[in-house]
């Protein structure tokens, strides 16, 4: 597929602070790309480098094959939905949406037609004459969206556009945005710190940390095969377990997590020289049983905490080690998520003895050293 946006070694410094650190990235035509990361990670700066509100300290920015590194924002074929929506308060809904077309000297008749189409696309027909202060937050968000897509840009940039909406509306907008993107075929670049939002909408996700792309991949790759401890921890929840390699044989290796707890891992996931590894295991991949299963990687443990989370129960389970005299405990605490089976009573209670099973397929090595 054709490349729509390309970043070549792009760096942005603000004084001594490096917000974006030599980023290389190719975004394909028609792709839904998400920049995901914590606040201050540089994802918004990266977006602003594409929209032209920031100029790269080093590197090149290409849009549609054209080098736009030094092109001002008003001459780039990208439109943006701002986090604050940035609706012009002195213009009504129709004039807000028509703004970009007026600036491009589109004739009045065509302008009216395209504004009508854009408003229909975001279900705002009939509100043309409304003033921004007469709109709800969700409606303003739609005006901002219509104003951006009416120009038919090559790339649509969305800077955390859903963060100000309530949870329900946000969720329905996520699906609407995704549908809109498929319908229009425009390249979307979406910035968010909400990992769930990123997983739901994106074709590809760039996980960004400290101005660098930590990992690039689709939602499944990012979630199930995190490349780094940061990604494993930031996307969803993860048990990050330090381990020491104690034994290698055939296709399996054994690593020691803590006193009395050894885990079998696939040997190919470890390098030959590795002696220490950081493992990531998703909480829902820890299987809990009340009786001892006849499987490998099953550990006896005690439920330390049980939290009701609606569809799931969150358990903290202590495995290995021995209780100390002062009430503290050695060993290791695992976080597990189990489906809520009964609607009448809780299946798990604090203090219960349980068995945790971890399949070797579900163990991801995120860091290793000799």
């Amino acid at each position, binding site marked *: 597929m054709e490349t729509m946006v390309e970043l070549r070694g792009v760096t942005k410094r603000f004084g001594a602070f490096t917000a974006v650190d030599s980023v290389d990235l190719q975004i394909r035509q028609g792709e839904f790309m998400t920049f995901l990361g914590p606040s201050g990670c540089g994802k918004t700066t990266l977006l602003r480098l594409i*929209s*032209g*509100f920031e100029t790269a300290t080093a590197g090149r920015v290409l849009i549609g094959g054209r080098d736009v590194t030094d092109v*001002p*924002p*008003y*001459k780039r074929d*990208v*439109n*943006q939905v*701002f*986090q*604050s929506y*940035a*609706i*012009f*308060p*002195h213009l009504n809904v129709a004039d807000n949406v028509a*703004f*970009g077309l*007026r*600036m*491009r000297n589109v004739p009045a008749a065509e302008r009216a037609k395209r504004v009508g189409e854009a408003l229909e696309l*975001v*279900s705002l027909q009939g509100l043309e004459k409304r*003033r*921004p*202060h*007469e*709109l*709800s*937050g*969700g*409606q303003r968000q*739609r005006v901002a969206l219509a*104003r*951006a897509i009416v*120009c038919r840009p090559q790339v649509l940039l969305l800077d955390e556009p859903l963060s*100000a*909406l*309530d949870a*329900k*509306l946000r969720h*329905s907008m996520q*699906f*609407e945005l995704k549908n809109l993107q498929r319908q229009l075929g425009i390249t979307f670049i979406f910035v968010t710190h909400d990992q769930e939002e990123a997983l739901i909408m994106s074709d590809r996700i760039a996980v960004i940390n400290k101005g660098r792309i930590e990992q690039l991949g689709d939602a499944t790759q990012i979630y199930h095969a995190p490349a780094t401890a940061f990604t494993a921890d930031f996307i969803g929840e993860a048990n990050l377990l330090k381990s020491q390699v104690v034994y290698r044989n055939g296709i399996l290796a054994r690593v020691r997590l803590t006193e009395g707890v050894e885990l079998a891992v696939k040997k190919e996931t470890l390098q030959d020289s590795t002696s220490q590894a950081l493992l990531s295991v998703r909480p829902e991949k820890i299987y809990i049983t009340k009786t001892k299963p006849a499987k490998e990687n099953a550990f006896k443990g005690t439920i330390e905490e049980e939290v009701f989370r609606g569809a799931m129960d969150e358990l903290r389970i202590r495995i290995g080690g021995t209780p100390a005299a002062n009430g503290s405990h050695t060993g290791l605490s695992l976080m597990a998520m189990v489906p809520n089976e009964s609607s009448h009573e809780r299946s798990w209670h604090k203090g219960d003895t349980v068995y945790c099973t971890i399949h070797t397929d579900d163990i991801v090595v995120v860091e290793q050293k000799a």
Partner: protein
Amino acid sequence: MAGTIVATDTPAAGGRKPPGRAGWLLLAPLLAWLACFVVAPTAILFAYSFCQRDELGFVVWEFSWENYARIADPVYLKIFGRSLWYAGLTTVLCLLIGYPVAYYIARAPASRRPTLLMLLMIPFWISFLLRTYAWISLLKADGLVSATLEMLHLIPEPLEILYKPAAVLIGLVYTYLPFMILPIYTSAEKIENSLIEASMNLGAGPWRTLAHVILPLTKPGIFAGVLLVFVPSIGMFAVNDLMGGGKVDMIGNVIQNQFGQARDWPFGAALGITFLALFVISFWFLHDRGEVKRT
């Protein structure tokens, strides 16, 4: 899905209710002050404007339209016209000079704005008369401005602008400039940066962003500034007196003269009332157009 939009916030309902008993009590000092020092003097002036004077200049309580009829005299109409012309020119110059300054201060980093505003306010700590005399010494033929320009060979002979219309204009613009800058600053400061970015993102270059976003959003400030400069500069007399050398009389000078040397209070009152009427009419006119709905 699209039909069921949940309103996350309700649009602000702008309603005003009359003050309660406690409200009136708190307003009382202000209302008393207004009654004593605004309403009463204006009423006295209004009454005087229909009276006559005797040979010694005392007010004779005898109803007459004569004072208003005298205003229609071409001499006074000419002075009225000149006042409007100078006030208009002053307003335009203040707007042209003041707008970029106000915008610059409003867009400066928040940490630097108080300093810049302070620089604007410092002249107010010095007496108005002193500042006007300072201008006279700057502008006179052997003054600092003329001497500097001559030294730089930019002008062949000493500058002759003092006691000319140009000097009056400089004085008026100098006096009223802050009253143009401050209201524009107030409305420019409220413009969110993202609105300017949105405009640029939608294809508007700097000038079109100015015309289509920044100017419309600062309209309330512009109208307030125009009002604050235009209205008082019509009635100004001190600057024209000192810097115009009595050759550039405006309506303020005429009114002042009626209450001073000419000792014709009824005529002065009639001029004052006419002036006030113009003031009120122009205020209404501008105010209705200055309203901009904001979120």
